[in-house]
């Protein structure tokens, strides 16, 4: 059976269940204990598990991640919460130079079973230093696993998989998805890391969405049906590694491809996907692969400007029409 739950609640359940299952799992981050987390994901967990397993840390991301890496090397399974992906840049050296490389440099004699949870994305007027989507900064690092679940079911199942994985996982949440509801299966289940999900089947174009943009692409695809464009939607889910087989199978069938991310598309995740699709599907393509990303600006504070800076379902529909070769609709 299954029950409808909020994305944030699904995450909280995953954390609580994994902490009950395995004593070596602990949480560390800013304001995650008494305050319950900036997005209320860890609410109630301090009372349940105590201050040694739910650790309120000072505002020092480099120290938080560095200490988590050390504890992971010695056998614990830290789950770090960083308040936004922008703040993870303070800890970028620890993540890239230590977390991603230690298992390799130690010849396998040490490992870093650490999860770093952090939300990205705009839409809440949090301005230029709290709103970006930096999937690509982690997607390009060998040694990291990078995932972005978009449904409550995946949020819970993939977080459990991430915690049980012996390698560092960048677990990218989205501020705009925390209040999304969806069916979540009862009991203990995991969702594999490294697998994309086909959210809708279609024959005219394959739209691949990264993180929240997969949800946006699905909305756009439903609306495109009225225009007689039958779009297939793939939720990338795993940014590193990329799950190529379903993407290739789909594009070879539809012959057309559009890739959408909220971050900057230049040098972005969409660039990587488009290049890979082109290499694998060249002789099957009936139109150039198109990419859609956010405006190339620091995220504005002004609400209208912020809205204008992130892709909308209208933007997805417009590009999809161009790829399919339809004239824009009147008006």
């Amino acid at each position, binding site marked *: 059976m299954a029950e409808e739950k909020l994305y944030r609640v699904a995450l909280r359940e995953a954390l609580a269940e994994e902490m009950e299952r395995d004593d070596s799992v602990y949480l560390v981050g800013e304001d995650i204990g008494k305050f319950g987390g900036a997005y209320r994901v860890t609410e109630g967990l301090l009372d349940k598990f105590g201050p040694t397993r739910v650790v309120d840390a000072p505002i020092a991301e480099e120290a938080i991640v560095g200490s988590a890496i050390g504890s992971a090397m010695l056998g614990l399974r830290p789950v770090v919460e960083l308040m936004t992906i922008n703040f993870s840049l303070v800890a970028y050296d620890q993540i890239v130079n230590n977390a991603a490389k230690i298992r390799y440099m130690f010849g396998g004699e040490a490992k870093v079973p650490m999860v770093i949870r952090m939300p990205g994305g705009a839409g809440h007027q949090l301005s230029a230093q709290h709103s970006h989507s930096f999937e690509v900064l982690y997607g390009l690092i060998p040694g990291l696993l990078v995932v972005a679940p978009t449904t409550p079911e995946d949020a819970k199942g993939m977080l459990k998989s991430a915690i049980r994985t012996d390698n560092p996982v960048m677990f990218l949440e989205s501020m705009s998805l925390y209040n999304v509801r969806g069916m979540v299966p009862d009991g203990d289940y995991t969702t594999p890391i490294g697998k994309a999900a086909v*959210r809708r*089947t279609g*024959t005219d174009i394959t739209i691949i969405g990264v993180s929240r943009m997969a949800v946006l692409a699905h909305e756009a695809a*439903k609306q495109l049906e009225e225009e007689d464009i039958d779009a297939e939607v793939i939720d990338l889910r795993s940014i590193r590694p990329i799950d190529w087989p379903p993407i290739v199978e789909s594009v070879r*069938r539809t*012959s057309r491809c559009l890739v959408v991310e909220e971050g900057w598309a230049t040098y972005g995740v969409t660039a990587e996907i488009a290049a890979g699709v082109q290499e694998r599907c060249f*002789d099957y393509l*009936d139109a150039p692969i198109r990419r859609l990303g956010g405006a190339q600006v620091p995220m504005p504070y002004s609400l209208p400007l912020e809205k204008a800076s992130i892709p909308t379902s209208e933007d997805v529909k417009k590009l999809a029409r161009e790829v399919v070769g339809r004239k824009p609709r009147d008006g």
Partner: protein
Amino acid sequence: MADVNMPKLSDTMEEGTVVEWKKKSGDPVKKGEVIAEVESDKATFDLESEADGVLDIIVQQGVPAKIGAPIARIGAAGEAPAAKPAPKEASPKVEAAKPEGPKVEPAAPAAPPPPSPKPAAQPAPATQDGDGAAAPSAEVKASPLAKRLAAELGVDLGIVQGTGPEGRIVKEDVQAAAAGKTAPAPAPTRPAGPEVEVVEPTRMQATIARRMAEAKATVPEFTVTVEARVDLAVSMRQQLKDSVPGADKVTMTDFLVRACALALRKFPEVNSSWVDGKFQRKRRISIGLAVAPSQGMGLLVPVVHDADLKDLIQISIESRQVIERARSGRPAEGDLSGATFSISNLGMYGVDEFVAIINPPEAAILAVGTIKEVPVVDAGRIVPGKVMRMTLSVDHRVFYGATAAQFMAEVKRLIENPVTLVVPATQ
């Protein structure tokens, strides 16, 4: 030296043809690399090399070969190709035509000069007969898919009008051009020529003809028809489409696949075959769906495997995918084989009811008619209702009238109580 043999690509395939060798004799090939496109009676498949080495082609493209017959060899690099008994064609001709020694292009006076700005050559190409309009074929803008299709269908892209963005030639343009080549526009007057035109069947059509005649000659069949009320199924389908993610494309055929899978589990004797004087009871329940190909005349039967282990939404998604793959001419392995029961639904064409021919070795096939609004008597009152007629063709060697009737009663019960079809699949 490893032999490359003609693969068996479907249950009914007896021979295949290499449509195109992707590599030439003497080319190095890698394990897993596509070396040829092979056509069976049903579809076209990519043939991958199973070893690293150097390709030595035995059977030229276009020449049919029996299943299992060697069509090429893969030798170790440096290994001399097996002493060739006078190769049938192609490669030596090319070599003979080539001059000895390093290839030196004659200093062609026609060689293009280094690019220099020539503004005058740009406008009014129609009046230009010099370099402005000189090389149209090299400048044709076509998608990679269109180029590949044009090569496969023998279409000259130079004469195709592109309808894509910026005049790009796309798939549909090539297909339209190919169709135009083979099917001239219908003339108002009777075309000149013989009274009867003899048309070569495609490989698929030849197979269908042979197997249908075999079925009618060898299978003693009888039929059983029931009419089911489908008001609930129709409204449940709409509810699913409106409110359940992933169910937006569920069809009445998907409902029938689920219903038949459940009924087959209850009646294993229906999920059986008569082979060499014995019954074969099939453990897996896999349902074939008779569909028309996207182009030309013919029949494809893509298969939803283990349909009894899948819920309605899985069936809906998978049947769409498998039909799409089959229609694209590039099915995955197993997509067209292994069915234990088939469904043919002509309801979308408005057919009231019909009798389908069994596809041996299956023991039965369900023929489904259209959903009609009719007056029905319900608890003594005449009310509007939706009904659908289903006819089961049965191989009488495998099971008998009473079982056929009970099986159809079960299918009818399930489709009339569609809530039974949306509960999760059980192992």
